């Protein structure tokens, strides 16, 4: 079993735990791969109301301080678009994921 902070790789039954419990926390389970559309904040238009931060269902928007625009955590954001929908000044764009 390859077990690093970044990823866990399992060969098969011989190196698996018996129990179907996760081997680590969400640090190993980057859910961003589910994303098709990516929210991008136009910081010049952002009024720092943090409504997007409150609404994000995955807690994938980080709050630093009141004077800094929120930061989207692209490791976990699944691209649901709730932030863009809720933004009162429409400063969040959902853009095509480049992969």
């Amino acid at each position: 079993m390859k077990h690093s902070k970044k990823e866990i790789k399992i060969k098969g039954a011989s190196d698996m735990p018996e129990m179907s419990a996760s081997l680590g926390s969400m640090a190993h389970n980057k859910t961003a791969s589910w994303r098709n559309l990516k929210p991008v904040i136009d910081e010049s238009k952002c009024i720092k109301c943090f409504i997007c931060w409150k609404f994000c269902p995955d807690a994938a928007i980080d709050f630093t301080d009141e004077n800094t625009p929120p930061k989207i955590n692209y490791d976990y954001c699944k691209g649901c678009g709730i932030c863009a929908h809720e933004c009162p000044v429409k400063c969040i764009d959902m853009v095509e994921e480049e992969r």
Partner: protein
Amino acid sequence: MKKVILGDHAVSYGALLSRVQTIAAYPITPQTLIIERLSEMTANGESNAIFTKVESEHSAMASTVGSSASGARAFTATSSQGLALMHEMLHWAAGARLPIVMANVNRAMAPGWTIWTDQNDSLSARDTGWMQIYCQNNQEVLDSIILGYKVSEQVNLPTMVILDAFFLSHTAEGVDIPDIKEVDKFLPPYKPEIKMDINDPRSFGALTSPDVYMEFRYKMQESMDKAKEVITREGKEFGKMFGRKYGLVEEYRTEDADTILVASATVASTARAVIDEMREAGQKVGLLRIRVFRPFPTEEIVRVIGGKKKVIVIDRNISFGKTGIFFDEVKGAFYNYTGNKPPMFGYIAGLGGRDVTPKVIREIMDDAIKKDKPESEILWKGVKL
């Protein structure tokens, strides 16, 4: 200390001596006395377990799964319809690899409504991943609870300790209740490798893709296989400490026997008297009691009855559309056996608590002995036509 106690109370003492930490249970005849006594034991301070009254057997096992997953030694008990209601959670307990021990009092399934014994309730849970131990007396019931934890906590699979309704549950006999300090030496506190812990958060039982699900199942089977060795080893170790040895099967006067009776639970106990009686009359008969049904002791069965002249299986159960379940499995053990396969006679007797007396067993033996081969796959004993 030797005490005259009911089979149900032997379960309660087994749980007490195993220092169980949680008990969540719902009462059902003939299991009720187990739970009553355990609630007394927790109320009067004999046991430090947390006793949870739940609203159903499904909840009883759900609660037990939760406490076991968080690292507690968890216990519950049920019977019949109650076991059926918790069926979904039986899969959960085994799949989550939790070393829960549960007593099930074998009571036949309704309808017709019944409180008397047969094995169809527990055998319907055959494929859930639980180990199953069928007991023949109250002493074995008490000892098997302790042994259940000892084995389960090594192989991470739950154990069902099974006793016949009334013939054990409500029958009192002398039981040696070991000193808890001695039991402590045999059964140290439970230390799980992985448990639910707020300081080490993980997700449990989450969505499992086809990539790894099969491997989890493979590992359950691997543990079941390993359990055979562990049960045998711990049964011997228990014998050294407490003077009572337990294995996967129990042989009685089989060495030079040409005809072997295969039975389980209290029927096997009663059968010993019949074997003695027939031996006195010069007949070479012996008894193989299947104590552990899961994991199934294929090798032991083949070793004991392979090459014998005749094998007779008594089932207090039926797989509708097939045969008696023990009979089916004993036969199955022989398909790839290259030695001499004995003809096998599968009798069904004692369903719904009908008494399997020494006379009934003797008649079965005599019937099979006089025949070359069985006239059908099921030989019904005592059915009124």
